[in-house]
């Protein structure tokens, strides 16, 4: 074929191809309004211990009505089977490229969520930034509840979680971080717990996982401390009740920033001591005690009070985790970093973990006490 003829042939092929493609003879097209877009997937266990999958999809009613959330549920053995069953219930193609959140009921979580997450990771259209959330109660019930101030429940929960991790109330837990902690040696994953409370949804603490199984709950009081133990903490707020004799009262510290440092020692008897050094800095935003804040010495007392409070609470938190045998702070990681790989391979961390001594040393620094040092008490006559 001559060069010109070849060129003409290619042009014809391209033209024919384009005509076929454009006229809709193309199955890969995913035209926006013809899709049922998954926003949240929830997993429950029903009475017969069968998986029940609930999908909150962004969908549009027929004939151009308002875009809203639609809930469909299917019972299945696996999440992919559920997808096939779900698609029988909708007039549009279910796609998961806009998935934001996956929710697991506590029952599902305590059975282990490895298989479910594996399937999420396998699908390339699902982002690694999809959140993982544990629900206290039934997921389906939570998603199907109507919250008067928030018409779109799945979006509401998603935004709630997003705001809370931006404020560092809860750690950011998405597929990437969960699988990383799950696969990493010496650290176990966590996930935020949400619960329906009246007309709202609230963050109900952290779910502690041992490997991929839910083993226990950390109350929301520990949120801040957990964040401090995991990484750098910036621009947070912390509320502390002091119960020292001379400086009773509650302190609210604002613009709190913390820096952490772990140190590991070997015990003579074998086993390890892990010590966490925390450097906490903050401004006093609120103080209800009766110590004069203008007095430098008293500020040091308050600082000591805060330090003691934080270190006690931190040790309590690790004790709770030890009880559940879940190493969510990552003490194992610290130990692993302090010894050789060969030695790490030889020890059985799961057995060793409850025997590890954890200590927390806190150094608090109050940067400022606010504009007004003290409002004088009016003298009564």
């Amino acid at each position, binding site marked *: 074929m001559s060069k010109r003829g070849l060129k003409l042939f290619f042009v014809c092929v391209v033209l024919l191809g384009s005509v076929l*493609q454009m006229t809709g003879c*193309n199955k*890969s*097209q995913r035209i*926006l*309004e013809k899709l049922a877009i998954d926003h949240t997937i929830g997993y429950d266990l029903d009475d017969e211990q069968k998986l029940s999958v609930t999908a909150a999809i*962004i969908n549009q009613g027929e004939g151009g009505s*308002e875009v809203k959330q639609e809930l469909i549920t299917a019972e299945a053995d696996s999440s992919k089977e559920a997808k096939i069953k779900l698609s029988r219930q909708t007039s549009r193609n279910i*796609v998961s490229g806009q998935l934001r959140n996956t929710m697991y009921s506590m029952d599902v979580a305590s059975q282990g969520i490895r298989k479910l997450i594996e399937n999420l990771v396998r699908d390339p259209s699902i982002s690694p930034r999809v959140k993982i959330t544990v629900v206290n109660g039934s997921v389906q019930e939570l998603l199907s509840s109507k919250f008067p101030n928030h018409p779109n429940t799945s*979006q509401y929960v998603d935004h709630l979680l997003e705001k809370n991790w931006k404020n560092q109330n809860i750690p950011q837990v998405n597929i990437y971080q969960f699988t990383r902690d799950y696969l990493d040696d010496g650290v176990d994953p966590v996930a935020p717990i949400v619960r329906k409370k009246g007309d709202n949804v609230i963050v109900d603490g952290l779910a502690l996982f041992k490997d991929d199984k839910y083993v226990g709950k950390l109350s929301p009081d520990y949120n801040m401390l957990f964040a401090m133990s995991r990484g750098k903490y910036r621009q947070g707020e912390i509320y502390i009740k002091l119960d020292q004799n001379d400086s009773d009262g509650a302190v609210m510290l604002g613009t709190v920033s913390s820096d952490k440092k772990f140190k590991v020692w070997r015990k003579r008897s074998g086993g390890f001591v892990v010590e966490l050094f925390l450097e906490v800095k903050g401004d006093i935003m609120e103080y209800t005690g009766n110590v004069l804040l203008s007095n430098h010495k008293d500020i040091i007392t308050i600082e000591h009070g805060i330090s003691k409070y934080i270190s006690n609470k931190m040790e309590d938190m690790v004790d709770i985790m030890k009880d559940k045998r879940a190493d969510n702070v990552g003490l194992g990681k610290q130990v692993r970093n302090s010894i050789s790989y060969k030695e790490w391979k030889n020890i059985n961390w799961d057995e060793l973990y409850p025997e590890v001594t954890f200590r927390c040393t806190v150094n608090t620094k109050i940067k400022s006490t606010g504009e007004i040092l003290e409002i004088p008490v009016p003298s009564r006559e």
Partner: protein
Amino acid sequence: MTANHKPVTLEYVLHEFEQCVDLIHRNFPMLSADMVYFDHLIDKDAMEREVLQPFANVQADELDHLLKDTRFKPSSSSKEIIEGILKGDAAIFHESSVYLVSLYGPSSRPIEQSETEAVIIGPHDAFTESAFTNLSLIRRKLKSSHLKVIQLSVGEVAKSDVFVLYIDGIVNMEFVNEMIKRIRDIEVDIITDSNMLVQHIDDYPNTIFPLFLTTERPDLIVSKLSGGRVAVIMDESPSVISGPTSLFEFFTSPDDYYQRWIIGTATRILRYIAFIITITFTAVYVAITTYHYEMIPENLLYTLIESRSRVPFPPVFEALLMEVTIELLREAGARLPSKIGQTIGIVGGIVIGQAAVQAGLTSNILIIAVALSAIASFVIPSYVMSASIRFARFFLIILAGIWGNFGLMIGISILVIHLSKLTSLGSSYISPIAPLNFQDWKDSFIRGPFWMLKDRPAQSRTHNKVRNKMKR
């Protein structure tokens, strides 16, 4: 050759101009002289001053003496005489000899502002249809004996005058010779405008991009000449050609140099952003709504689905429909007088802005995309380039409709490959990028401060590189 030896007679000339009623033949019986000219090509005042007055004041025997004056050019070639008459000379027949006197001065448009390349600050004069006016505009701004002007003629029938301009000592003569050669090689009956001439001399006839800059602004041509470019003026055309040209010259405007360099740079960057918007914005909309729902931010998702929901077409047809409508409006507006043009604007605004959405033919987000890319296309100073880019957009929209983002990337790659192939007068069309010359980026992607713009553009391949010797 025979015509040169045969004495040219009045009868011969009159015979040549048979059936030309606009030819004037005046007889001076007292002086036994005849004069032949085209009344509308000559300046009446000059005729009075140069010919009629002196003729009235001489006796028959003194005429020979008068005709020895240098303004009367003796000629014996019939071809020369006929060409002279056609160019606005008057031919004077006296006894057996013929004289040509140049009285050229037809009525022409005065120097006005450019409609297509208006600037806010800086000189407002624009080229007119008269080549001599245009030459004068350039000479006034460039008072140098190094500015050389070569006269050529194109068109087998029309014989239009073409002037090639360059600054001796700055220009690379290769370009001048190449330009002259290409203009001499043209063998067509008629060329009516320099934008038409450009298409006869450019390197690649089958490209959508203009390979030579054409402008109506004398200040731009003067700066191009001093940058070592060759300029071509064509008589009866208000656009002047400059070459060799790079793609990025079409995104610069003389305005950039009349403002502070920071503002000039910002404006220039704005034009490149406009270029990207024009070429890709609608195509990205098509790609995303057809294939890549994952890319849409959550908050936009709801509005986008809602606005798309009543549209009966796939996004690519929806986009093409609106793009064609905008092009229709633009074309209609360009041809109409300004009073009716307003009506078109209102009808277009209402039809496109409101009715099409309400009727459910398009989504309102697409309207924004289409309108934005249309507006952005008019930010580009050169009308010819802006039309080329608007055309390339259709190609990208269709590719985006077929293969989504992948198609868009294919389209952009093809465009880049095509652009890198192009040459202007044999030099690279995407000059400061390939061949890479970072020095020139200061005067193409940004408008650097004057103390940084030390060298003439590398594309000119000039031997006289430095144009700014100042330290700041």
